[in-house]
C-alpha cells in the first residue's frame, strides 16, 4: 500500500509541532503557574488555568512558528484566562484565598506567633491590592515577577512602557496610602 507524500509531510509536521509544544510545557509551565496563582491565589485553579492555556496553544499550534517571543505570548494567554476566571469567580470569599495562601507560603523557621503575624500582614496587603483600580493592580501584580521587565509587562498588557511606569507609580502610591490607613485603624 502506497502512502502519499503529503500524508508523510503532514505526519512529520504534526510530530514537530507536538515536540515544540512539549518543550514549551517543560520550559514555561512553572512560570505560567506562578502568574496564574498571583491572580487566582488558589493552586487548583491556577493549575487549571495553565492547562487551559496549553490547550489553547494546542488548538492554534499551526501558528507556533509565527510567534516571536513564546514566553510573553504564553504569559499573555494565561493572563487573559485568569482575569476571565477571576471575573467569573467573584463569589468566592476572600478568607478562602488567605487560607490557601497561608498553606502554600513558606513557614520554615517561623514561630506560631510570627506565622500568625505574617499571615495577617499578607492578608492586609492582598486586601489592599484587591482594592486598587484594575489597571494599577494588574501592573503591580506583574511587576512582582522579577523575570518580567517593564517592556515585557507592556507587551503582556498591550500598553506602552511609559504607561506601565506611570501605572506602577500610581499603584505604589495608592498601596502606601491604603496600608498607612490600615495601620492607623489598627
Amino acid at each position, binding site marked *: 500500500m502506497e502512502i502519499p507524500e503529503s500524508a508523510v509531510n503532514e505526519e512529520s509536521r504534526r510530530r514537530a509541532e*507536538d515536540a515544540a*509544544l*512539549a518543550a514549551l*510545557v*517543560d520550559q514555561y*509551565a*512553572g512560570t505560567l*503557574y*506562578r502568574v496564574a*496563582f*498571583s491572580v487566582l*491565589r488558589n*493552586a487548583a485553579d491556577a*493549575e487549571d488555568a*495553565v*492547562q487551559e492555556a*496549553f*490547550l489553547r496553544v*494546542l488548538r492554534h499550534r499551526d501558528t507556533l512558528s509565527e510567534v516571536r517571543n513564546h514566553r510573553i505570548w504564553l504569559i499573555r494567554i494565561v493572563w487573559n484566562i485568569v482575569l476571565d476566571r477571576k471575573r467569573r469567580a467573584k463569589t468566592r470569599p476572600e478568607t478562602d484565598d488567605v487560607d490557601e*495562601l497561608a498553606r*502554600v*507560603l*513558606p513557614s520554615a523557621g517561623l514561630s506560631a506567633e510570627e506565622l500568625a503575624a505574617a499571615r495577617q*500582614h*499578607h492578608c*492586609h*496587603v*492582598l486586601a*489592599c*491590592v484587591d482594592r486598587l483600580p484594575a489597571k494599577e493592580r494588574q501592573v*503591580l*501584580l506583574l*511587576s*512582582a*515577577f*522579577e523575570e518580567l521587565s517593564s517592556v515585557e509587562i507592556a507587551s503582556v498588557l498591550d500598553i506602552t512602557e511609559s504607561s506601565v511606569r506611570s501605572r506602577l507609580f500610581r499603584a*505604589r502610591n495608592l*498601596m*502606601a496610602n491604603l*496600608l498607612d490607613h490600615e495601620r492607623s485603624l489598627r
Partner: protein
Amino acid sequence: MNSTPHQPSAPDADARFGEDTLRLIARLPAPPGLEDRVHAALRSASNRSLQRQDFVDGARPQGRVLAWPKPISRKSDWMRAAAAAVIVFVVAGGGWGVYTHVQHGLPTKVIAMPRVFQPGGFSGAGAMRTPQTLPGPTVNLPAKPLPAAPKAAKKPATRPAPARAQSAQTVSATTHTAEPAEPAAAK
C-alpha cells in the same frame, strides 16, 4: 551630625508598598508533577481531536458501537449500496404484502342494537339544553341619593325581667295547670 533625611532601604520600601507579599507569591514553586499533568491533558485532547478528524475524513472512529465487517468496510461502496437496496426491497415488499392481504371495499359488519326503553327509567322529559350566555355589558348609573328614611321613634328602654323571676313564673304556670288534673283523676 548627619543631617540627611531618612531614606528607607529597599526592603523597607517593599514592605511599605506591600510588594514583599506579591514577590513572595511570585516566587512560589510550581506544584510537583505539573508538567506531567499538562502533558497528559494535551495528549488526551490531541487524541480526541484526531478521532474527530478521522470521523470527518470518513475512517472508522474508535469506540463505534456498530461497524461494518472488515471485508465489507474496506473498498466496497457498491456492497453498501446493495445492502441498502435489499433493506429497501424488504421493507417495501412487506408493506405491499400487508396491503394486498387487507380486503378493501367490504361493508363493515356493524350490528345495530335496538333501543330498549326500560320501564321505570328516567327520561329527559323533552328538556332541551340551552347554552349559557355571557352576561352583556352593564351600565353603572350613578346611584340616586335615597330619601332619608324617617327616624324611628325611640322606644323607652324596657328593662328585661330578671331571668330567675321569669323561670319561676313559668314553673308556677305549669304546676297550676297540672295540679287540678290530678284530683279529678283520683276522684
